[in-house]
């Protein structure tokens, strides 16, 4: 019996673990090794060069540009998404007409419909979204976005063709696509808060705004914190949107260069696989550091309910 059980366990684990080891773990481990070589990716011969790749990265202005752009996304994107999603979740949950009858704080009608629509960008592939927005943000005066600007009396602008605006266009599409997901997430977390907490707050005379900030928000803190880490990873990992939507990609004038794009270009076009792996390692440590900082900085006493 005991023997049969172990055979069963091994039998069930061997294929998934083998696949995971070959296609996920081994490439991750290899990346660390290649990052210390001058491997081109083409020739089978290469040498171990220690930390030379990492030193070169410090003086690679294109890479530094990419890091700076990622940093802008990293700071602005999670903040904008979380604030917007919290705001909409707040409206969904406490923005409805109520009162007078002692029924207390209630959500708006049709919240199911709003969730359905808000969430939509999340299920479509990034290239689809990128193509739609690339055409909407057409720089010619007759483009869709420009026709809206003209409609409200403003002049047309270059959008993705304008080096000063392009990164913010990417940022906008990222935010636009992510808000619905986090709205649904926050909404689900809010729904799992027990009713008697709201009841108690009402009996104590708290209004809907006070209830939201004093009761709901602290109970959501765990969820917000997790969301922050996920959004930060998303901001660091952004690729498809930039690769499809921007000119070049990464342009104009490298204004939308990001780390992932640099990895792809160095690894697959410039024949610098070792150098690209070093960028991957840097990306990995950024992710690690940010997750650690976020989890530390936002740590609060966990409220059990």
């Amino acid at each position, binding site marked *: 019996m005991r023997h049969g059980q172990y055979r069963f366990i091994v039998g069930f684990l061997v294929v998934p673990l083998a696949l995971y080891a070959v296609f996920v773990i081994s490439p991750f481990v290899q990346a660390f090794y290649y990052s210390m070589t001058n491997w081109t990716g083409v020739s089978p011969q290469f040498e171990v060069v220690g930390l030379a790749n990492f030193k070169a990265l410090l003086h690679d202005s294109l890479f530094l540009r990419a890091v700076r752009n990622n940093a802008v996304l990293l700071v602005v994107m999670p903040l904008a998404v979380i604030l917007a999603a919290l705001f909409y979740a707040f409206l969904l949950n406490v923005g409805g007409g109520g009162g007078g009858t002692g029924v207390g704080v209630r959500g708006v009608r049709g919240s199911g419909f709003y969730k359905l629509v808000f969430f939509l960008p999340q299920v479509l592939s990034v290239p689809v979204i990128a193509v739609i927005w690339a055409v909407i943000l057409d720089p010619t005066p007759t483009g869709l976005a420009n026709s809206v600007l003209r409609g409200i009396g403003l002049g047309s602008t270059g959008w993705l063709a304008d080096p000063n605006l392009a990164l913010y266009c990417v940022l906008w599409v990222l935010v636009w696509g992510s808000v619905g997901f986090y709205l649904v997430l926050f909404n689900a977390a809010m729904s799992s808060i027990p009713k008697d907490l709201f009841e108690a707050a009402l009996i104590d005379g708290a209004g809907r705004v006070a209830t939201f900030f004093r009761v709901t928000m602290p109970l959501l803190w765990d969820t917000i914190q997790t969301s922050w880490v996920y959004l930060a990873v998303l901001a660091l990992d952004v690729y498809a949107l930039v690769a499809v939507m921007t000119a070049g990609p990464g342009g104009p004038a490298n204004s939308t260069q990001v780390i*992932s794009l640099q990895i792809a270009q160095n690894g697959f076009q410039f024949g610098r696989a070792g150098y690209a792996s070093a960028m991957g390692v840097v990306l990995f440590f950024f992710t690690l550091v940010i997750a650690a900082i976020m989890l530390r900085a936002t740590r609060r006493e966990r409220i059990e309910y």
Partner: protein
Amino acid sequence: MAVTTRTGDAGTPASTPPRQAGDGRGPGRTGDAGVNVFSHVVLIGWSVMVAVPFAWALLASLKTSREIFGSPWSLPAAFQWSNFARAWDKGVGEYLLNSIVVVTGGVVLTMLFGSMAAYVLARYRFPGNRLIFYLFAAGMMFPVFLAIVPLFFVVKNLGMLSTYQGLILVYVAYSLPFTVFFMHAFFRTLPTSIAEAAFLDGCSHTGVFFRVMLPMARPGLLSIGIFNVLGQFNQFVLPSFLSPERPVLAQGIATLLASQRYEGDWGALFAALTIAMVPVVVVYLLFYRQVQAGLTSGTLK
């Protein structure tokens, strides 16, 4: 957040238990109309912002290129159904087939192997159990770009670049962390009594898994299965490096955009987009509860 104008509920004696906020049903009665209207205006505003680009893209699939850019807000003078035929000829049919083959194989194997691993990790105690579980769970956090260059050479050395089997195996491997994590939690919640009864009846470990536990896990399988269908159908990063010669639909869309910059057949591009969007939106509308639950549950835990 400027919704501080009307807080009419303050001080209302709670003679009846307050409703739990969240489902949003129930008629708005007297008072708070200002807040209510404000909420709806804001929420409808964002809904429009989300829906208009998609609706516009659907409409553009029936317009000429000149109409798309020249008069973006107007209806087409004549419906250009031929856009779809041209999109199909530009390779969309082939890309769609590639996507269907890869996603079918990928999701079936992901669910099978993912459930097998998750079940064993959730229900059996053995040395290394926690280690293997955390190994899988950690995979959800790693940036795929760290691995992409070595992964390309792993697949190349196996002779699997631009092949169905190559993409399927890679999809399965990269879908395992989330699937194992989610199914692990799900198998933990299932009662043990039925499995024990089956063991007493002489059922083997494998038999209990396939005949008792998997059927009981159907809601979890459905929700995570749909998640994987959408995730693998929408996958762009992995195929664009690993399958350049045999593009899937998401890649094909990106390639078409690049080529329309000089070919200028934007009607066909939007027809291709429509072909890519409609199946996903139909799946979403049919299963949106499972989709939302599946996508968000992975983040919550």
